[in-house]
């Protein structure tokens, strides 16, 4: 439920109940007041009847009054001298229909004779008055409430605008991008506080992330010199003329491990570099020519494994950083070769905006999300486990869409260059 709806629900329940209670009480009070007025009038009429009887010694005619009806009834003796006021219905002979009315019933002595006198006054006009009064009061109140509700709605919408903006900005915040969190402009204290808190958190996250990257970079760099020493010592050892078969095998393994460690380090550094956006010089790159060049470059590997390569390349150029795109093509192609079986096949399709690498492989469908994680690899893989992570990072940086699919025994990596 939206904040406004929740707020509105409570408000409308209170308003409606309040309106009903106040309306009821108002009606009651007004009714009572009107009754009292009629009663006063009836009493005045009664006094008039008494005066009339006293002065003229006759009873006034029942129809002689303008707005009341008077009835006399002879009684034997006075029993109840109280004046009784009550509501009733009576037949209005002038208007010829039943009307609600109020009467005064009392017993009194007129011309020395006890009478029961009943004076009836129509309430019709008074009721009309009440209706008018209530309408006059109720309609503005309702209109006022409606206006209030509308104003509330607009106001809340406007007041929460900074919040909405804040939310959009938080969503737009990306730790990988240079852009920092964009603070919003607002005068509202609460939003200011929220804004500041989010800004602080984002800056902290950014600086922490930067530190981690810096650490990775420094650690990798620091490792390069010892690696250089190891490498050079291995090369020196290799020159010794006294190497036996066994030592040579150990040496070969050491070479392999050192080379792997070096590659791992280089890949980590490359990731940091891509993360830091250090490769920014852009140029026009003929993708078709680049792919053909790389195919030529890897041809010995392809021939050795007896791989069938089908290429279907349209001429297509993109504007990007050359090193990044070379890494991209290199990784795609070397993966397609490395994870293939002897005699397998590779299909490369380049249409405008779209590059697809398909290859048969020793494995079935891979996990479409996990394969792009760092250091995710199957046990058989000799790689660093960073190749696809680098691929993903390059695509992320360049705003390319990278998708993995598995279709009819083919692993398929497709890149859309125009996803934005």
């Amino acid at each position, binding site marked *: 439920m939206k904040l406004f709806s929740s707020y509105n629900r409570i408000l409308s329940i209170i308003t409606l109940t309040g309106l009903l209670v106040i309306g009821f009480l108002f009606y009651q009070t007004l009714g009572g007041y009107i009754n009292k007025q009629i009663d006063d009038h009836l009493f005045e009429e009664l006094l008039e009847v008494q005066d009339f009887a006293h002065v003229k010694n006759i009873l006034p005619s029942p129809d002689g009054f303008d707005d009341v009806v008077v009835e006399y009834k002879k009684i034997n003796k006075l029993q109840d001298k109280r004046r009784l006021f009550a509501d009733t219905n009576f037949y209005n002979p002038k208007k010829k229909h039943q009307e609600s009315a109020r009467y005064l019933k009392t017993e009194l002595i007129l011309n020395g004779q006890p009478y029961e006198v009943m004076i009836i006054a129509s309430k019709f006009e008074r009721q009309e008055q009440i209706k008018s009064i209530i309408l006059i009061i109720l309609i503005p109140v309702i209109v006022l409430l409606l206006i209030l509700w509308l104003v509330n709605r607009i106001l809340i919408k406007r007041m929460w605008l900074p919040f909405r903006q804040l939310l959009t900005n938080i969503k737009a915040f990306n730790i990988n991008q240079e852009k920092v969190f964009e603070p919003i402009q607002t005068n509202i204290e609460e939003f200011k506080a929220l804004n500041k808190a989010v800004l602080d958190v984002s800056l902290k996250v950014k600086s922490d992330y930067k530190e981690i990257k810096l650490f990775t970079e420094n650690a990798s760099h*620091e490792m390069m010199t010892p690696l250089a020493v190891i490498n*050079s010592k291995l*090369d*020196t050892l290799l020159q010794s003329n006294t190497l036996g*078969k066994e030592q040579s095998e150990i040496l070969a393994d050491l070479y392999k491990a050192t080379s792997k460690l070096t590659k791992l380090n280089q890949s980590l550094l490359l990731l940091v570099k891509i993360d830091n956006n250090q490769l920014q010089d852009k140029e026009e790159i003929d993708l078709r020519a680049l792919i053909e060049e790389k195919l030529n470059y890897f041809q010995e590997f392809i021939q050795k494994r007896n791989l069938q390569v089908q290429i279907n390349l349209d001429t297509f150029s993109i504007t990007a950083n050359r090193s990044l795109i070379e890494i991209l093509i290199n990784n795609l192609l070397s993966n397609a070769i490395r994870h293939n079986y002897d005699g397998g096949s590779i299909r490369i399709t380049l249409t405008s905006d779209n590059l697809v690498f398909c290859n048969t492989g020793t494995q079935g469908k891979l996990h479409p999300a996990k394969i792009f994680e760092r250091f995710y690899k199957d046990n058989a893989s000799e*790689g*660093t486990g960073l190749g696809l992570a680098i691929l993903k990072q390059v695509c992320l940086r360049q705003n390319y869409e990278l998708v993995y699919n598995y279709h009819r025994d083919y692993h398929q990596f497709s890149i859309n260059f125009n996803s934005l």
Partner: protein
Amino acid sequence: MKFLIVEDEEGLSKSISLYLTGEGNICDHAATYDQGYQKLSLYDYDCVLLDLTLPDGEGLQLLKYLKKINKTDGVLIISARNSLDQKIEGLSLGADDYLIKPFHLSELYARIQSIVRRRHFNGNSIIHFNELEIDTTAKETKVKGKTVHLTRKEFDLLLYFIVNKNKVISKAAAVEHIWGDDADMADSFDFIYTHIKNVRKKLTDSGCKDYFQSVYGVGYKFADV
């Protein structure tokens, strides 16, 4: 040839000097900026191997100094930083090449010789090894005056072995020389075997002696025994 190694990591400079010394080469060594400064002022070298991060100064400052005093020593920067900016800065300051740590000594030696060749023979250098004749500019190989057709990679491989003659070159070093860093294929070591086999065949078919020697599956050596 005379080389100066400006490198604070003793283990590394020792291995380098061990590899380079011999066959008429002499190696000098400087572990600090000051030592490097002194040696560069006093002596002339065919090639200076310059580490960029020294305990008491920047290697690039030494390079600037060298250019200021108008020395014509070749300079090969060896750095742990694979930064394009630094590379461009170093090369624009007059360094001849830029090698990133870690490297294979054979690669280092090949680069040094390439620098020396460019500096001393204006790039037009023909390398002789018995009946073999290699034109590094035209990328031509001749056996007893007869041209042998080698592919680009085969030529690079042969040149790599000849400049490192009498040294054992590991398969890893050879692979990296030919395919660069991208060659992280599991079975890439086998390709070197195939490649060397091809080169060997082409050379021996042209009447060249087989100078390639396999060293227990770790590497190869190009030598006249």
